[in-house]
């Protein structure tokens, strides 16, 4: 049997980063859900608590999906989309703030931009080969039919075994037969 292992190191690094991002998502999400007021005050986004809370729920959901999923790539891409939304929301508020709030906002923007870079790197690494390498057909099972003859010749070989009445399609759904 052939064996075509790829280089796994890139893949496991991306998976490691993905786990980190997953936990980060959950931590940030919990903060946003638990104390939205603290955030909106610091960023001059008063009145937007429910938006922040919704973003928090999004973070928690994405984070736990990344941690649970065997293939975290789509969820990390989901984070990238979320980052874009965060940046847009923060950017929109920048102009009409006092200097202190602008400084806070600037910090927040820089932080999100940094995380976005990590997200994009990780999502790319996961979806480009690196994450998929472990899934190359490593072994060849094309000869594993389990049948003594080609499948086409096996078709219907067990039709003689009676199907119990309670397993049959409901009478009403069986092909109509007159008489």
């Amino acid at each position: 049997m052939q064996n075509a292992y790829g280089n796994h190191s890139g893949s496991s690094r991306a998976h490691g980063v993905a786990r980190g991002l997953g936990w980060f998502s959950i931590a940030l999400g919990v903060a946003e859900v638990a104390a939205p007021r603290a955030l909106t005050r610091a960023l001059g986004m008063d009145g937007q608590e429910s938006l922040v809370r919704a973003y928090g729920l999004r973070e928690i959901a994405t984070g736990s999906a990344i941690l649970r999923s065997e293939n975290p790539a789509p969820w990390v891409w989901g984070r990238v989309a979320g980052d874009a939304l965060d940046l847009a929301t923060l950017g929109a508020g920048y102009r009409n703030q006092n200097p202190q709030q602008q400084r806070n906002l600037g910090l927040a923007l820089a932080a999100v931009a940094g995380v976005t870079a990590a997200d994009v790197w990780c999502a790319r690494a996961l979806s480009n080969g690196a994450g998929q390498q472990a899934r190359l057909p490593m072994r060849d099972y094309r000869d594993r039919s389990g049948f003594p003859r080609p499948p086409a010749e096996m078709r219907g070989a067990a039709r003689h075994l009676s199907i119990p009445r309670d397993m049959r399609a409901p009478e009403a759904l069986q092909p109509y037969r007159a008489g």
Partner: protein
Amino acid sequence: MRALCWHGKNDIRYEQVPDPVIEHPRDAIVRVTSCAICGSDLHLYDGFMPGMKSGDIMGHEFMGEIVDVGPGINGKVKVGDRVVVPFTIICGECEQCRRGNFSVCERTNRNKHIADKVFGHSTAGLYGYTHLTGGYPGGQAEYVRVPYADVGPVKVPNGLSDEQVLFLGDIFPTGWQAVVQCDIEPTDTVAIWGAGPVGQFCVRSAILLGAQQVICIDRLPERLAMAEAGGAIPINFEKESVVERLNDLTNGKGPQKCIDAVGLEAHATATIDSMYDRAKQAMMLETDRPHVLREMIYVCRPAGTISVPGVYGGLLDKVPFGMVMNKGLTIRTGQTHVNRWTEDLLGLIEEGQIDPSFVITHRVPLERGPEMYQTFRDKHDGCIKVVLQP
């Protein structure tokens, strides 16, 4: 004795545990010669199923030799008999057992009072599968106590190897029942989601029962290759649109019969094109669990059948029941009524119509179980089915 024990998510240990003893007159003790890791074990390993306790012995797919029997067995099995033990524990006498609905036996769940609360009415006891189904110690061990041993175990002839008959205890009848429930017509297209061990047996069963066209959907090339070897048309859901391909293969009408051999840990397709959709999906659903069910309900031909051997644990989000109702779909599901099928399937094996060992990709000693759980879960090393030897 030694056994594989559950200690929490991702934590299976090979440990020393007390030897089982006869606790009831209808018990027997089986010395396990071969056992397997099942996709259902992964739901416990991944921490998706409630009701496990630290130290529980895993495993419900096993066979071996009877080494001790209780006084109430009445000669139905004897010391020295070689048996496969179905994963559903049955009494053989209750109303459900008499109807052949073995997986919902009314008497074998020792924790019936809890199950009655959780499910409305209790189902059968299962080996190595949560305290909701009786908390019976499982078969990934050197020895197992087999309750109701006069009715459950299936005697197997010595001419057949362990590997040929082991899967009679679970995945072969499971794939078979999933297809039987579809009541195959010779004109049917059967679409099977999941090319894991259960999906593989669905493919073979659909061919044996005479379906015109069998299609299997997964994303792992080695599993799809094995499904193709058994006569299925493969669809890689990471590379192509499942709904489009299925409609193409059925003149736009959709498959009459759809089988979910994936269960609650389904992956969402990577073909969801916009990132926004992904984020939105993440917001609404904590995981992508019922993804396969939704896809099946959507693509199934009206008046068709949805058969669900895949295991689900609790509540599913956004299952389009309106579609089920308006399309007049039939849904059939359940843990497998193993003993209903073992005689027929053993017959097929003896006649040489099928050799279930085709699915085995890894054979290791029991002590390597913990590592094999991970290999099987992560689908590494081309792993499809692991057989363990105590």
